């Protein structure tokens, strides 16, 4: 039985002051602090429950370093349930846990708004600081990549070997509709560097399975840190995706992945597609915007990325016909995932430029080529490289993504509300609502607990080990009826 597909998207944003000497950690800290200083509450992130070094395979590979947690850096928990903090040299927005793919889109877009506010807050709060520009992308085109990670709640009793077998072909090939595109190559992965790639991240992946996120990046990341009851749940941490400007691409990225995971939980592994060389396949597919390149399977057959996706779509359609998909949280979204998935594969197969309103790499490639044509530029021209970067620029006056005609799934009012209001369908509701209502009493927070300081007693920790408890259904009435944090805790503990 599939567990509800609670989701979240973490985005590390690129930043620039235009002056290469500026320290990115300081600039990231300014962004987070300028935004956080406006909030009514000032709370610390609680690191007690963090164990990013735990490995889903039950062992830690020699030489694999657990990602560092830098406790001294800026950290804020927002009333929408998100975490906004400095992760190494980037400002990172980790969306609150949501219960449907469309909510994932809305809270991912809210993250862009948080960063946009933060840019303005820096200018206001630190008049002597240089203007900081924020980009939602995954590489600097000079060989440095940073992540957009997805998280999916899955059942603990699922065999991790089955997760690997089911997910590798999907994560290798889904880039055809959720790649963000880029000019050229920045690693030595290719014999002949491609002029344009479908994915920003593809060429940085060097292993099929592993614990790392910055060195020898794996297609399947085995970090086993559920931020929930570890006897029931696992959190699948997907690090191979690109950051999307297209809402439809984000919707499909998490929607297809969540649906295939639910199918695996309900029905087990059905006809898995075993690739002969998954790491090579990621690159081969990324380097071929014609979409004709084939990759080899372990049984010797060859398939294109679109053909792999057609097979996965067919399996998902039959799963839903059998009554599957309940774990996605909203039947109409399941229909929409299948409709858009099929439409994207068909559009890409017959006339890929026709997908420029929904697929980032297609939208980007179309304007790059047309601009080059208009101004008679070679594809290596700095103007085109600036366009490639500015596609992801969050400044409204410089953004190119907002000018290329991308279809929107969420209206701006709903996005703006999501900057401050938590999603209603997960424990993020309780986290965000407590922060809004009791800004002085909540002293630390993390994904699976809140700690209250009531002034007199010892600190009181409220555990939230089930992501599906603490929803609006469970707690809205309670939160509305209590007048103090003392009363809230008394009612919870009674």
């Amino acid at each position, binding site marked *: 039985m599939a567990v509800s597909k609670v989701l979240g998207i973490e985005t590390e944003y690129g930043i620039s002051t235009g002056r290469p000497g500026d320290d990115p950690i300081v600039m990231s800290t300014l962004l987070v602090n300028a935004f956080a200083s406006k909030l009514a509450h000032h709370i610390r992130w609680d690191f007690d429950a963090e164990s990013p070094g735990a490995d889903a395979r039950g062992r830690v590979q020699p030489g694999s370093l657990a990602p560092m947690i830098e406790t001294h850096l800026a950290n804020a928990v927002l009333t929408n349930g998100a975490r906004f903090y400095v992760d190494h040299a980037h400002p990172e927005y980790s969306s609150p846990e949501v219960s449907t793919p469309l909510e994932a889109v809305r809270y991912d877009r809210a993250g862009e708004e948080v960063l946009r506010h933060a840019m303005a807050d820096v200018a206001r709060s630190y008049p002597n600081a240089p203007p900081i520009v924020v980009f939602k992308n995954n590489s600097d085109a000079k060989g440095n990549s940073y992540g957009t990670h997805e998280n999916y709640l899955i059942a603990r009793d699922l065999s991790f070997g089955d997760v690997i077998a089911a997910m590798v072909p999907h994560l290798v090939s889904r880039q055809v509709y959720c790649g963000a595109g880029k000019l050229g190559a920045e690693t030595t992965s290719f014999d002949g560097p491609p002029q344009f790639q479908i994915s920003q991240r593809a060429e940085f992946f060097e292993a099929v399975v592993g614990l790392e996120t910055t060195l020898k990046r794996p297609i399947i990341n085995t970090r086993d840190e559920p931020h929930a009851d570890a006897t029931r749940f696992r959190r699948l941490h997907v690090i191979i995706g690109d950051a999307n400007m297209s809402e439809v691409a984000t919707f499909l990225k998490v929607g297809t992945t969540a649906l295939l995971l639910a199918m695996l939980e309900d029905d087990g592994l059905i006809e898995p597609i075993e690739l002969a060389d998954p790491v090579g396949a990621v690159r081969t597919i990324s380097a071929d915007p014609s979409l004709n390149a084939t990759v080899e399977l372990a049984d010797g057959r060859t398939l294109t990325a679109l053909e792999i996706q057609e097979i996965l779509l067919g399996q998902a359609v039959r799963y839903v016909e059998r009554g599957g998909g309940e774990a996605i949280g909203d039947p109409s979204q399941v229909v929409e995932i299948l409709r858009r998935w099929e439409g994207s594969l068909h559009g890409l197969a017959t006339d890929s430029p026709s997908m420029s309103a929904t697929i980032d790499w297609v939208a980007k490639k179309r304007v790059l080529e047309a601009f080059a044509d208009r101004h008679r530029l070679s594809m290596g021209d700095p103007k085109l490289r*600036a366009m490639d970067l500015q596609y992801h620029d969050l400044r409204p006056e410089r953004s190119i993504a907002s000018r290329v005609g991308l279809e929107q799934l969420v209206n701006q009012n709903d996005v703006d509300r999501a900057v401050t209001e938590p999603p209603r369908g997960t424990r993020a509701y309780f986290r965000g609502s407590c922060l809004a209502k009791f800004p002085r009493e909540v002293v630390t927070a993390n994904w699976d607990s809140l700690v209250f300081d009531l002034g007199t007693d010892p600190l009181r920790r409220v555990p939230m080990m089930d992501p599906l408890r603490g929803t609006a259904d469970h707690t809205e009435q309670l939160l509305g009826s209590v007048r103090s944090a003392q009363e809230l805790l008394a009612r919870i503990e009674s």
Partner: protein
Amino acid sequence: MAEQEQTRRTTTSTTESQDVEAPPADRDSSEQLKAELDDILDQIDQVLEENAEDFVRNYVQKGGE
């Protein structure tokens, strides 16, 4: 305008003669697409960083994930 659309629907529903009628419709939509793209390119001309070379060169990101 409504009348024009009405006419177009009628011609496309007469299946056999579609080949003769189809090209003008295709041209209309391709011209419309070209006009849309031209408008996007005009906007990009306006917003593109003036010093593209420095803008790209100074964008360096180290550390992450």
